[in-house]
């Protein structure tokens, strides 16, 4: 780790990706993530990598598909409408068992929506935004340092599971500046060889094919079951944080930037002698269901309140995890508006 420097979220994420071994970036501009491709355009040639501004989002994700298939550490980033356009390619990448990293700096929707922050793409990210039965490893970092640490390891995780990894941020995370310590760059030449990669005929290896087409139902079901086992194994990556939750009577729960607002609200509520706590999922898929189940079973916990910058998406996963043991309520803002800690406090006081 180096000395702390002040960096914008988008730039810090791009630099940490390069240090984590990213060598191929394919993108198409959209606010509020433009600093990522801008940074990569300058930075990747310095480390012998390649940056391409594609002619569209669809082209960009298919370039990721190609580069990942050839064994490269490939990445793309976009924001909500752009990520929607990439969904077909993401499904193909998942189906072809390829590793890649995708950053979504979410803006408000639906449609072209607005350019202000939102968490409206939760469902799209964790339930499979493209077609077919696939999942991604999805992270919802709530600070720039956490986003840096996650993307630095994301390429390793993608390679280990041969799965697309998504970092679900938002406009605040991308545009904000915070002090950050960047990890040292890895040595990409020391990475293990990918025995499945279609990296040309020079190695004299047997013919390799990367594909997601399985016409025979039994063969495809075999693949589906293989994915099922993989997603089961992926549960080892589940991560969360709790804050003052152990004696809490009311548990706030939120991810990403909203979790920071919730944390402030917990402090303010504690000052008013309200026993509030926080559960913050760090991985959104796999979802830390066991943690919710554990707290739902505790006598001191009266209710859960899910806070999101959307009309209520993660709250469904919280309800599944709490499984009717305690009430699960919801408070959200949308359209690009962001709740303040004081607003959350007012909302919680109404509910106790």
């Amino acid at each position, binding site marked *: 780790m180096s000395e702390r420097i*002040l960096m914008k979220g988008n730039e810090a994420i791009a630099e940490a990706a390069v240090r984590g071994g990213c060598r191929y970036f394919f993108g198409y501009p959209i606010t*509020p993530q433009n600093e990522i491709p801008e940074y990569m355009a300058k930075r990747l040639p310095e480390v012998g990598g390649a940056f391409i501004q594609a002619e569209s989002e669809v082209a960009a994700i298919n370039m990721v598909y190609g580069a990942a298939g050839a064994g490269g550490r490939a990445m793309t980033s976009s924001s909500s409408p752009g990520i929607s356009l990439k969904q077909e390619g993401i499904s193909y990448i998942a189906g072809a068992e390829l590793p890649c990293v995708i950053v979504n700096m979410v803006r408000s929707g639906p449609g072209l929506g607005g350019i*202000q922050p939102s968490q409206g793409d939760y469902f799209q990210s964790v339930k499979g935004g493209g077609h077919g039965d696939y999942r991604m490893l999805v992270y919802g970092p709530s600070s720039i340092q956490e986003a840096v640490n996650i993307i630095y390891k994301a390429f390793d995780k993608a390679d280990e599971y041969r799965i697309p990894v998504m970092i679900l941020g938002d406009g605040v995370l991308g545009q*904000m500046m915070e002090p950050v310590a960047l990890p040292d760059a890895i040595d990409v030449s020391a990475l293990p060889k990918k025995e499945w990669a279609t990296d040309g005929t020079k190695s004299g290896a047997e013919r390799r094919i990367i594909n997601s087409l399985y016409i025979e139902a039994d063969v495809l079901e075999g693949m589906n079951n293989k994915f099922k086992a993989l997603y089961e194994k992926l549960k080892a990556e589940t991560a969360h944080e709790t804050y003052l939750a152990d004696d809490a009577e009311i548990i706030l729960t939120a991810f990403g930037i909203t979790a*920071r607002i919730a944390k402030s609200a917990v402090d303010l509520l504690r000052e008013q002698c309200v026993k509030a706590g926080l559960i913050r999922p760090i991985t959104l898929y796999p979802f830390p269901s066991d943690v919710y189940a554990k707290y739902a079973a505790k006598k001191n916990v009266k209710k859960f309140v899910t806070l999101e910058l959307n009309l209520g998406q993660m709250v469904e996963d919280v309800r599944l995890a709490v499984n009717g043991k305690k009430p699960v309520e919801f408070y959200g803002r949308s359209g690009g508006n962001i709740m303040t800690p*004081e*607003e959350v406090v007012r909302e919680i006081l109404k509910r106790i």
Partner: protein
Amino acid sequence: MTEKIIIAGFGGQGVLSLGQFLAYSAMYENKEVTWLPSYGPEMRGGTANCSLVISDKAVASPLIETPDCLIALNKPSLDKFINNVKVGGTVIINSSIIKEKIERTDVNAIYLEANEIAQKAGSVKAANVVVLGAYVAASKLFPKESVKGTIAKIFKKKPNVIPMNLEAFELGYAAI
């Protein structure tokens, strides 16, 4: 210690960079800080603002509802945020541009002719650094010399502008 600051003005007045000066100053003083710009379909001459939270511990929310300090560089920004400032908070007003006095009596109002003072230092463009000096003097949040060191670091690629900015900082500091 947690200090919440909103800085607002016209695009081009150095609102965002004033915020960055403070963010760097905080970081070099080993404090935690978040700098959050307003972003949107902004244009030259439109309004811009940024929110800074400076703290001894990890900053929870980067968003500010009730700032401890408002730095208003133009009238629309003052009007937009003045009622949010917490009771007993500080409002620094660029009186080169804002001619009215504020009605609130429960905040500490500081009127600063930032443009004229910056002109004395050499350029009206340094008005934001004048305000920085005034803020550092008023808030006593950072040692003066540390912030001067920060200014020199930030402009290290343009060393010819450092003396003028240090002068602007000193004049702003002395105005309090």
